[in-house]
């Protein structure tokens, strides 16, 4: 099997506008030391994929900084490796620069030449809004066996009508063949095969679909291609049975981080043999706990200094929490400095926030209190 990967870094930026103001969805920090793209990238690398195109459109400096040359994912290769695919804008096409694409299909059209010149038989496409640790090589194997045209990775899940309105999901028959696709529908709830936004197809097929879509000026992959061709083409689901979480809102972002405090979730994401999750290496020293530290049920990265009380928290690299401070149910991102006698509850502090002595801040799990990057409070 030969396959290459394509990752969409900007597609879901609008889901969490606070966090993506200055970054892509792909580079949203997650789980103490990761960025969302780490899961999509690691899944591909662990399946033996050694060429991954990362489609970027805007706000992508933080992503470039995170990825570097791909070393940390073993993707610094002479042939293949990580390829950053920014928009192709010619000097004569003034319109293209001002038009931000919003759909996967438009993103793919922008990287036609990369797809055309890829000799790998299969292409694996993945968004960055799903956290999971999945064996992609098995997806490709099942894809070959079922002789499907496109295989969508899904998980059976009950969706409330609120959640359903932000997801893509399917109805399929007992063999897994897709009979109906729903793309962000309103007023539907029930148990469906919910898409993890990972799909596999032949490179040639993707290229054909794209040329056709370009000629007809199609806009959406789901509604203009998949939904229209349900009868003539074979679309199959691949049912994933591990842990996955989709991040479609600030509330879900908070919840999904907090779920890492559950043992089973950590096992399902980080403890699978031969399938580590890789991320940028920062060479921070280990974390130092002082004699006043009191830490319970928390996930903590390296490079922190903890002197206060920390409960039910996700603490990123290089955070410092001083004496007599109490931090509960918080997501504290990289380089946050929390002074003395500070009380925080349900707060998400973005990178390099400075919280001075004696401050008290509180949010609620449904609406966590978000502090913008670099702010001093």
């Amino acid at each position, binding site marked *: 099997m030969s396959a290459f990967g394509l990752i969409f870094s900007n597609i879901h930026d609008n889901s969490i506008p606070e966090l993506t103001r200055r970054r892509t969805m792909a580079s949203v920090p997650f789980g103490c030391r990761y960025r969302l793209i780490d899961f999509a990238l690691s899944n591909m690398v662990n399946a033996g994929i050694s060429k991954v195109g990362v489609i970027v459109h805007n706000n992508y400096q933080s992503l470039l900084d995170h990825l570097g040359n791909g070393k940390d994912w073993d993707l610094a290769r002479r042939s293949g490796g990580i390829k950053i695919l920014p928009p192709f804008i010619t000097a004569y096409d003034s319109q293209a620069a001002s038009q931000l694409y919003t759909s996967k299909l438009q993103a793919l059209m922008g990287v036609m030449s990369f797809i055309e010149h890829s000799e790998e038989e299969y292409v694996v496409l993945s968004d960055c809004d799903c956290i999971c640790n999945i064996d992609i090589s098995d997806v490709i194997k099942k894809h070959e066996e079922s002789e499907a045209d496109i295989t969508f990775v899904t998980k059976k899940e009950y969706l409330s009508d609120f959640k359903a309105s932000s997801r893509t999901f399917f109805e399929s028959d007992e063999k897994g063949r897709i009979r109906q696709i729903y793309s962000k529908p309103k007023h539907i709830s029930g148990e469906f095969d919910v898409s993890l936004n990972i799909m596999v197809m032949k490179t040639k097929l993707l290229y054909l679909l794209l040329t056709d879509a370009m000629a007809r000026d199609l806009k959406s992959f789901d509604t203009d291609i998949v939904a229209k061709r349900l009868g003539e083409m074979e679309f199959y689901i691949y049912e994933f049975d591990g842990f996955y979480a989709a991040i479609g809102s600030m509330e879900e972002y908070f919840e999904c981080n907090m779920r890492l405090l559950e043992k089973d979730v950590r096992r399902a994401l980080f403890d699978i043999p031969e399938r580590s999750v890789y991320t940028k290496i920062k060479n921070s020293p280990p974390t130092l706990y002082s004699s006043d530290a009191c830490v319970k049920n928390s*996930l903590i990265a390296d490079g922190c200094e903890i002197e206060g009380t920390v409960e039910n928290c996700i603490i990123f690299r290089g955070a410092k929490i001083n004496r007599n401070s109490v931090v509960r149910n918080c997501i504290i991102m990289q380089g946050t400095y929390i002074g003395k006698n500070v009380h925080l509850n349900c707060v998400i502090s973005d990178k390099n926030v400075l919280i001075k002595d004696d401050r008290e801040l509180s949010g609620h799990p449904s609406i966590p209190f978000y502090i913008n990057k670099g702010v001093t409070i």
Partner: protein
Amino acid sequence: MFRKKECIAMLLAGGQGSRLYALTEKTAKPAVSFGGKYRIIDFTLSNCVNSGIDTVGVLTQYQPLVLNEYIGNGQPWDLDRTYGGVKILPPYQGKKKADWYSGTANAIYQNMNFIDRYNPEFVLILSGDHIYQMRYDTMLAFHKVMNADCTIAVINVPIKEASRFGIMSADENGRIYKFSEKPKKPDSTLASMGIYIFSKDKLAKYLEEDEKNPNSSKDFGKDVIPAMLAGGERMFAYPFSGYWKDVGTIESYWEANMDLMKENSLLKFEGKERRVFSRTNAEPPQYIGKDAQIKDSIITEGCEINGTVENSVLSEGVIVEEGATVRDSVIMNGVTIKKNAKVEYTIIDSGVVIGSGASIGADKENAKGITVIGSGIAIDDGKVIADGEMVNDAYYEEKLKGDMTV
């Protein structure tokens, strides 16, 4: 590919470090883990990188497997270079004879061809078994200003410890007029740190002569330095005043680990120029459980703590289960300490499993000494290992398994 370098480093990493007993049974001393996520050699390598020295020859001899794997292509230290970078230099078989490195000077002598490829003016000689942070570029600047032939980094030591070191006497300009290796009656407290900068031509000349001398022990401290001093060369002492610790014994290794937790620790890892680089695995963040109690400790990625950890250093991936206690100890990577086990004043090497309810060592105040558990050993549930014991594979076969069958 070779490009001229002003200064290259030669790092002596072949020593056995036999006083670390079980810790160096399967690895060379520079590859012994330290301070949670480091190996001893990381400090010297990072010093090189932070000083702008990008060509480092690492001379290996004793148990090189782990060390070679660890250094690899030098990528974690940014030493995977097209021109220069880190190169492992094992002893080799020449046309006339094959030689192990018979001493520090001989090891460098056998690799003069490596040095010559870069045509350096200066050669920095280092050993990979000290914990310190130092800017070699400042030392090199000193060497150049003094127009020295050899500069030796020195540190002030207490007079009662001076007889353990190579002791230097220097005039007010720092020029060395006397050197004595481990003197019984030291007349100075300036101890050699085993860090030398030589002007390359002088180094070549004296190594050549030393090699021909049948009475020489082929050692820098014992032979080359005294010979240069006798030859009237310009030799200077470069004073260093930061943290510097030889981790050659179990006690000093333990102390150096504990020093990291001191509030005024002189080792600082913050800031671009003080970063210490290391090769790390893709470990998840550390999880601290609901019933965990952690005080005065250093804990690394991949750990899962559900018991009590006090005044201890834990490396990557250590698991401390419910009810287990770890106190005054250094725990290396991948160790599991099962339920209700007790570990006190102990150094545990990588991959060890301590069975539930087992008791290792005794509390620091009353213990006979530090207990050491060698790598990969599994201590059965409920076993008691007395304080001060050194447990390696052989010991385990003989004593502990023996007990089992009785």
